[in-house]
């Protein structure tokens, strides 16, 4: 009798336990949730060296900065998915601080070199004279506008006229990264 009672209790216990397993979870109807994110527009340019110093140069001398490698590197980034351009210009001719003499703009030159981009480097590895107007350096492809950094390297050269007046000369090079309308 006692063992039968034990058996029944065990059975009830087992049934109660299994009842929990076989009891079904309640379900609610699915609820849709919309998720969204705004990716910030990225369109920027940096230069690793913003001082182009030729140091002392003799009248009649040609001096090259970055020969055999490069002098400075421009980094352009865009995630706008559109073609962009890199341009370069000189704000004014090299002008002497004391005597206000000018070294003509065409005596200062730049040479665009290596890039990791898929676009076109205009006159790559060729020294180009600066002008006061913007000159195209690089035309990107769309693949260059998916946020990856695109590097363009530069060398610079100056050809001091053989009648150049002794002085400290300065000017400003302007780099512009832009999309077109």
């Amino acid at each position, binding site marked *: 009798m006692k063992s039968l009672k034990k058996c029944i209790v065990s059975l009830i216990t087992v049934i109660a336990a299994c009842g929990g397993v076989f009891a079904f979870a309640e379900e609610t109807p699915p609820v849709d949730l919309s998720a969204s994110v705004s990716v910030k527009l990225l369109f920027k340019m940096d230069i690793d060296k913003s001082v182009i110093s030729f140091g002392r140069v003799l009248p009649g001398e040609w001096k090259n900065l970055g020969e055999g490698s490069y002098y400075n590197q421009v980094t352009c980034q865009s995630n706008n998915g559109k073609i962009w351009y890199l341009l370069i210009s000189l704000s004014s001719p090299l002008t002497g601080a004391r005597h206000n003499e000018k070294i003509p703009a065409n005596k200062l030159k730049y040479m665009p070199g290596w890039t990791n981009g898929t676009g076109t480097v205009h006159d790559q590895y060729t020294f180009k004279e600066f002008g006061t107007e913007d000159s195209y350096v690089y035309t990107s492809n769309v693949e260059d506008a998916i946020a990856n950094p695109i590097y363009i390297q530069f060398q610079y050269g100056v050809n001091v006229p053989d009648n150049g007046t002794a002085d400290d000369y300065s000017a400003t090079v302007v780099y512009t990264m*832009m999309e077109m309308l």
Partner: protein
Amino acid sequence: MKRILTYLTVVLMTLMPIYAYALSDTKTAAVSATVTPLFSVSVSLNTIDFGSVQAGSWAELKTAGGSYHNEVVCKSNNGQTWYIKIKVDHALTSGSNTIPLANFKWMCAYVGSKNPPYAAGTGTLANAIAYISFITTDALVYTCGADEKSNLPNGIGAQFNYGLSVPDTQPAGSYTATVTYTMTETL
């Protein structure tokens, strides 16, 4: 009213692309270069040799085509006024004998640019074109013109003649001295 609204809509839609902007970014780099000063004087012929001169006679040196003896070329890109000066270290001397200092003379007859179009100098000769007795301190020859302060690449040339009056009682001998030409930015 409907027409006005339609026209307005068309105008606005036409103008919108004009006011859409292209993305751009600009950076600058400062360029500098120092053109070094060049300041030099050179002489075309560094001997003033009268050769054999009889006592009591006057000898003159104009060996370059009969018009001058030597040329002093001054180059500068410093943009400052410069001067040519001349002196002798002592009277022409042979042993214990000297020819009086005042008997040895110089003349700067012409100054001109060595750059095309080779114009005459625009500066000032310190003396009239005549023989001047040498002295043992710097004597001013020429003050450059304003447009000669920087005169590269070829400089400005000053042409010199020399004269010597040998006293008629002068003992025989080989007489020597040293002439110094100085280009300077100080008077």
